[in-house]
């Protein structure tokens, strides 16, 4: 190589998205190379879509050498179920769907059971699924910018045999040297998107043309106003209050979860650039659409100690 070529090379700098992508791929490869039985938690949301896309890149031309696991609550949006099947098939990966049998039996739902809904379907369901299949590492799409308590979450988070998180037992992460060793029964949650922000995710989806659930784009949808939150009537199971009539509004969702727990925002943003535009000019943060952390600002941290992502 001539010195001129070297010089011109050195002026090239990877963009922030290229660096984030390379880091996520590095993390996935490190984890998979040392794991016995890894799995990717797939929630069908935009972060999961990004993570799955990165996994395809990390192991190309092989398909990602692990299955996808969807811990289902039976209360997700219909559009999410549709994309779930398609995304797994496109990636050439096995899709495992797990529903907590006790929650199925008791018919746990967000209308009658309050926080029990999240506890049983998601928190318990995740633990049961990981135990059932004996997964020792689970990739998750959590980001450090989502919430204050997550800013200190490691990229590899160690859980005891009972899936509890102990802030005192987390390991220092130096350079890009991940210590993936664990005792029998312990498991790892790996967060390859730790250093991505919400804006990074959107820009990446835009740049890479990643398939996401259409609910992220504005469209006329039937909603009801519940205590200031616009809840979409996604199927006939939604009990309407007396006198309540679903109204057609142009709405979109900034995060996706169980439809009765996920607030829509009124919006005309029907394309990805418009969504990003709206996000940049908006003044409320992403998590506000989720009913789960409204109680107190430290509630996410409690959830994490109990084993919820």
């Amino acid at each position, binding site marked *: 190589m001539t010195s001129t070529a070297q010089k011109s*090379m050195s002026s090239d700098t990877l963009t922030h998205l290229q660096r984030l992508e390379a880091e996520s791929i590095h993390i996935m490869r490190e984890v998979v190379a040392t794991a016995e039985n890894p799995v990717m938690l797939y929630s069908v949301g935009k972060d999961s879509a990004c993570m799955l896309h990165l996994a395809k890149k990390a192991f*190309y031309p092989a398909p990602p050498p692990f299955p996808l696991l969807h811990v289902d609550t039976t209360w997700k949006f219909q559009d999410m179920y549709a994309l779930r099947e398609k995304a797994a098939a496109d990636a050439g990966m096995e899709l495992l769907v797990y529903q907590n049998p006790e929650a199925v039996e008791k018919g746990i739902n967000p209308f009658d059971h309050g926080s029990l809904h999240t506890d049983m379907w998601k928190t318990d369901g995740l633990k049961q699924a990981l135990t059932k299949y004996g997964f020792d590492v689970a990739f998750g799409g959590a980001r450090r910018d989502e919430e204050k308590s997550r*800013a200190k979450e490691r990229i590899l988070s160690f859980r005891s045999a009972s899936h509890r998180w102990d802030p005192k037992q987390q390991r220092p992460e130096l*350079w890009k040297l991940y210590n993936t060793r*664990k005792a029998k029964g312990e498991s790892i949650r790996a967060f390859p998107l730790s250093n991505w922000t919400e804006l990074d995710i959107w820009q990446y989806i835009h740049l890479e043309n990643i398939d996401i659930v259409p609910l992220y784009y504005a469209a006329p949808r039937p909603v009801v106003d519940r205590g200031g939150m616009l809840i979409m009537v996604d199927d006939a199971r939604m009990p309407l209050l007396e006198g309540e009539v679903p109204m057609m509004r142009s709405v979109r969702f900034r995060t996706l979860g169980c439809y009765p727990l996920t607030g829509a925002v009124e919006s005309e943003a029907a394309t990805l650039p418009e969504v990003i535009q709206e996000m940049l000019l908006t003044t*409320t943060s992403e998590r506000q659409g989720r009913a789960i952390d409204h109680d107190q600002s430290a509630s996410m941290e409690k959830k994490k100690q109990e084993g919820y992502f």
Partner: protein
Amino acid sequence: MSGSDQSYITDTLIAEDIDAYLHKHQHKTMLRFITCGSVDDGKSTLIGRLLYDSKMIFEDQLANLESDSRAHGTQGQGIDFALLVDGLAAEREQGITIDVAYRFFATDKRKFIVADTPGHEQYTRNMVTGASTADLAVILVDARQGILTQTRRHSYLVNLLGIKNIVLAVNKMDLVGYSQERFYEIVKEYAHFAEQLGIKSFLPIPISGLAGDNIVTRSENTPWYQGPTLLGHLEDAPINATQMQDAPFRMAVQWVNRPNLDFRGFAGQIGSGTIAKGDAIRVLPSGKTSRVKSIVTYDGQLDRAMAGQSITLTFEDEVDCSRGDVITVADAPCEVADQFEATLVWMDEAEMLPGRPYLLKIGTQTMTATVTEPKYEVNVNTLEHLTSQTLAVNAIGVVNISTDRAIPFEAYAQNPDLGGFILIDRMTNATVAAGMVHFALRRSQNIHWQAVDIDRTAHAAIKGQQARVVWFTGLSGSGKSTIANIVEKKLHALGKHTFLLDGDNVRHGLNRDLGFTDADRVENIRRVGEVAKLMSDAGLIVLTAFISPFRAERRMVREMMETGEFMEVHVNTPLEVAEARDVKGLYKKARAGNLKNFTGIDSPYEQPENAEMTVNTVELTAEDAAEQVVAAILAGL
């Protein structure tokens, strides 16, 4: 241009031409930095201010912040920016941060990742963790307090971790009346200290995190300051990954990708340099060479790739290469060694145990390593070198490290990717130390394994035989040399290529410097073992005749050889028979006390437990014994 003007223009661009905005932001770079300061230096306030001023705080968070400020805040009715970044509930109540937290904000030019590390004295570990991934460090000083012990500690650590770009942020300038004299007094004191540490340069900036002076916009309160604002400097500072592009190519292999029989790719993240299709590469530690056939990515093949990218390489030739190996440019490989001097930062509550095996992870490989007693421990407050037998949590010391196999590496100062390592406790799996390689110890330095095309199999094949090491052991006068000599003659007559190593031909040359103490006997056998190994690599049938009295050394030699090649022959002659023969008159001398450390008299002979063969020289003649040994050798050939 001032910060508020900038954000106005940005908002206008977002509103009027989102595609142009997105295009611009796809070309942003990324800088990672660390903030360090003492407990009350206003670090959290500064970070909160950067998030706030770069509009990374949404209205609902602001509402939370306002209510939190009234409940827990330290600013009366004002907004307490520190509450934006203080994380876990327990520590929020204590009012201190106790871990490394990562925060994100962005301007039009860059995305930033801030490692927020605590100022508490006992948390060296967290600071080192945060600094390990940083391109730049902001060292905060309270203008009223000046340089504190902790400022020195933080600066030492930042320098230790190799951060070249240091900002001395003299904070709370509002509380010293924006005094130019006070500012320069602090800068002068720090410059003196920085010089002691070997910090080549730093940028001092007078700021107020609380009031916002010189953070985003130039302050009217410090007209005497002509330098950049803090954010302005963060936007222009160089990035490590970019600087690594001019170094020679290195990539640690993470994963061998074999989706089918036709594809074999080596996946990794390029640590330094660039690579292009057709480039000659070398795989370390084996030293094998090939050329890059393709640079494979999901987005298509690349003609070239650079430091920081995660890629997959395929080679022109079928070359052995697996996880942990390092691929380098062929004509500038890195060193390979198994003994190093390194600095360790101890991170575990259980102190370091010299001599105990730990796991060492460097690049993408993990192996067993032992650590010597510290050569010295560093008092990071005074920079004094202290003698120490161990390292406790948060202690920093210089040690020698020995790994159980040779590894490709570079000095940390040259390439953190191949010079930074962690130590892991084998029982608890905790990460117990961070280490930085200084250099390989003289014994192993600069010895590259030269991969050879004519290998040991080829050497043996041309001789029409298989290599063997036939190791005769037994008392002095047992008949080892006699039998070995007859064995060699018989093999030679059969057209076999042999060589006999015995005490006499070795001790007159190669081992002339060795005596007969236990330590010298061990070294004698080690050297003979190495020579026998080289000769077996050459395809020879090697016969050795040494007393070799210790089991441990015979085992060591056995383990040096290829499986199945080593054959231990115990020439079993009782002491009284050997002594009665006394061919060389040595027993008589030893009994008379004229020969010290004589095996069987005043030095032990440890009987073999698992010898492939035992010959009894009381019942057999030397000729018959040799015939049996030859038969055994030929049976295995």
